């Protein structure tokens, strides 16, 4: 299997280069991450993040032949003979396939990603109907891998001002939670030319999400709520 991989070590390199690799896979190497682990046995300087290797921790997001995805759930059999790997676009590169995700997490934090309920907590659980709970499906499962936000042209242009699809999906996750009491403040927090409204429904986020979530739909729902409260 052949690779062309973005390599950059600020400690050593003046500028990034694309480096070619050939790696012989074992029959047990099913996923792109398996191939990368094997490659690292050849060249231990190749740097990438990885952890759970089952698509739940969100560590190994990268740009695979031009499309963002998780290496651990991308099947080798589904890839062409030659694979081009780059770091997630739009974020500063720390080294090789590792990007600095500070801006991404800052935007996530900016939506106040936690349930706010100011009633005194009851003795037992707060009640929620199965239907109200199901409204959180497709939202809470986000793994913060950043595939979506770093595939979004609006986020590339304004990563400091536009919350981005991942952050907005979570903004809606808390608006949609019947236990949360601060919907109005949450909408105020997004009422701004950039934070929400830089989404132009390009839908790259939906296209790349490794968990099949739909940030565009969630963003549409927030926009609808904004419009409804304006009239």
């Amino acid at each position, binding site marked *: 299997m052949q690779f062309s991989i973005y390599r950059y070590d600020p400690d050593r390199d003046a500028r990034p280069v694309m480096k070619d690799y050939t790696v012989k896979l074992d029959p047990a190497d099913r996923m792109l991450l398996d191939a990368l682990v094997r490659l690292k046995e050849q060249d*231990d300087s190749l740097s990438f993040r990885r952890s759970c290797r089952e698509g739940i921790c969100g560590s190994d997001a990268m740009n695979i032949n031009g499309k963002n995805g998780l290496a651990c759930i991308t099947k080798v059999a589904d890839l062409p003979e030659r694979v081009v790997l780059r770091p997630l676009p739009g974020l500063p590169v720390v080294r*090789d396939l590792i990007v600095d995700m500070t801006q991404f997490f800052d935007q996530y934090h900016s939506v106040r990603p936690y349930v706010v309920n100011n009633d005194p907590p009851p003795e037992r659980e707060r009640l929620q109907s199965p239907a109200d709970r199901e409204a959180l499906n497709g939202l809470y499962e986000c793994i913060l891998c950043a595939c979506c936000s770093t595939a979004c042209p609006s986020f590339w242009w304004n990563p400091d001002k536009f919350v981005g699809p991942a952050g907005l999906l979570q903004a809606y996750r808390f608006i949609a939670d019947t236990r949360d009491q601060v919907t109005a403040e949450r909408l105020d927090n997004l009422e701004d030319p950039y934070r929400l409204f830089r989404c132009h429904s390009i839908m790259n986020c939906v296209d790349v999400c490794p968990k099949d979530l739909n940030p565009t739909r969630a963003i549409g729902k927030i926009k609808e709520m904004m419009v409804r409260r304006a009239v």
Partner: protein
Amino acid sequence: MSVSVQVRKFDAIVVGAGGSGLRAALELARADLKVAVLSKVFPTRSHTVAAQGGIAAPLANSTEDNWHWHMYDTVKGSDYLGDQDAIEYMCRRAVEVVVELEHMGMPFDRLENGKIYQRPFGGHTQDYGSPKMAMRACAAADRTGHAMLHTLYQQNVRANTQFFVEWMALDLVRGADGEVLGVTALEMETGEVHLFQAKATLFATGGAGRIYWATTNAFINTGDGLGMAARAGIPLEDMEFWQFHPTGVAGAGVLITEGVRGEGGYLLNKDGERFMERYAPNAKDLASRDVVSRAMTTEIKEGRGCGPDADHVLLKLDHLGPDVINLRLPGIREIAIKFANADPVREPIPVVPTVHYQMGGIPANYLGQVVAPRDGNPDAVVPGFYAAGECACVSVHGANRLGTNSLLDLVVFGKASGEQMVKDIRAMPAAHPELPKDAAERSLARLARLDGAASGERVPEVSNALRRTMQAHCGVFRFPEMLTEGVAKMKAIAERAANTMIGDKSRVFNTARIEALELDNLVEVAMSTVVSAEARKESRGAQSRSDFPERDDANWMKHTLWYREGSRLEYKPVHLKPLSVESFEPKVRTY
């Protein structure tokens, strides 16, 4: 590599940002203490995120239940090696901590009446082991760990907890009297080493399933806390007890939750027989994990395995129907399609017992304080040092953990250790005690060796040899010659690990260096495991020996303590006395 070491002072440091670390951090941050949470990975990437089936609590939302029954099941599940004071403590606090998680916003599934959805799980029964299963596992679909970890992280965002993300702790710093003063840690992005000084240091570093070849564990689960503790002279407790989860995807290792069987799935051999009926007539597929894993291994060994190599069994769940699978087990369907090429709505999933959880760890009491023998007291507190979660041995799981008790362990003992740290810090003088001059010496020497090594064996060669050795010599069934040989092999591997080299000498995000440092920790965990297993001449819970097939309470109802120095073993008594109720006396364990 810079040799100057910056010192950073905190009231408390928490090493690890999984379920127990985040729960403790929350307690500390809410007490307005100066806290640092160090993690090798961004908090939501911690392996708690991969837990699937549920968290145990006797909420009694669907079946009658109470903490006494839960306590009985946990004691029995532990094969009477669990400490009954700690088990009582955990079971009594279960409802409180789970309700708190709900209040924090954790998206539990719901029953029609709006209460938290609960499902049955292996070994959890009603009325002290009656054939009726208790529905005790509180679930967020089959993503309970993800839902819990994200919720706990979100609460820490709210509490303004200070995180040091992608910092790897290297070594424990101890004072002249053995008190713990903090840790050294490496900032992965810059390669700098800093010394984190604290009045209270909590290890919440998780498990070490990466000592085995086939594991459900993440790459990061390398037992860093155990390695650090062992190097600093703290013993490791009950390391021979490793849980093989019955249902790892054959060939891939990825976990398939026991919740599948809780929802009504079951195991089949090549003859299409539901073989668990023979091994556990009452609980069947919901017997305890050690029991099910042994049954599966026996089926495979006796030629009733499935597939061209007869090397796995099948987990059938298509009869549950697509609605139940999509609502309650959506993550499992995703995993099976991706890793087993099998859509469980139509076909069974090929599974094998796969290493999943370490019951042993750093000895701690139920307040989260690390304990070690001193002056005749087997449980003397090590001042300044705390441990919670999978890295700790409290011991609530004894020789075998029940499913869903691990997430409960994380929040109960995360919270308890946080509370204890707050109390202890407030009782201490304002100034930090002085650090020894050579506080960072061990870490700097380890790094200098790696930087200076121009030749030597590559790290993956050694770590792969370690994993293969543990897999072959210390598995579901254990054999005396294999164990003896395993000890010898591990000694050779430990020497090889001390002579590795890395090609990458960069300061910036040097993952080859990280893997080399992790190997040091894997070696301590693997060595303690095989040495402790070889010495324990009985079968109990997850330790099953061909030459000693029975449990031997007269001689072996005791905890193992392994010391790194000389690979020496000691033993200490099990706490048979609970806090407020009568002891559960050992009985023959059947399901």
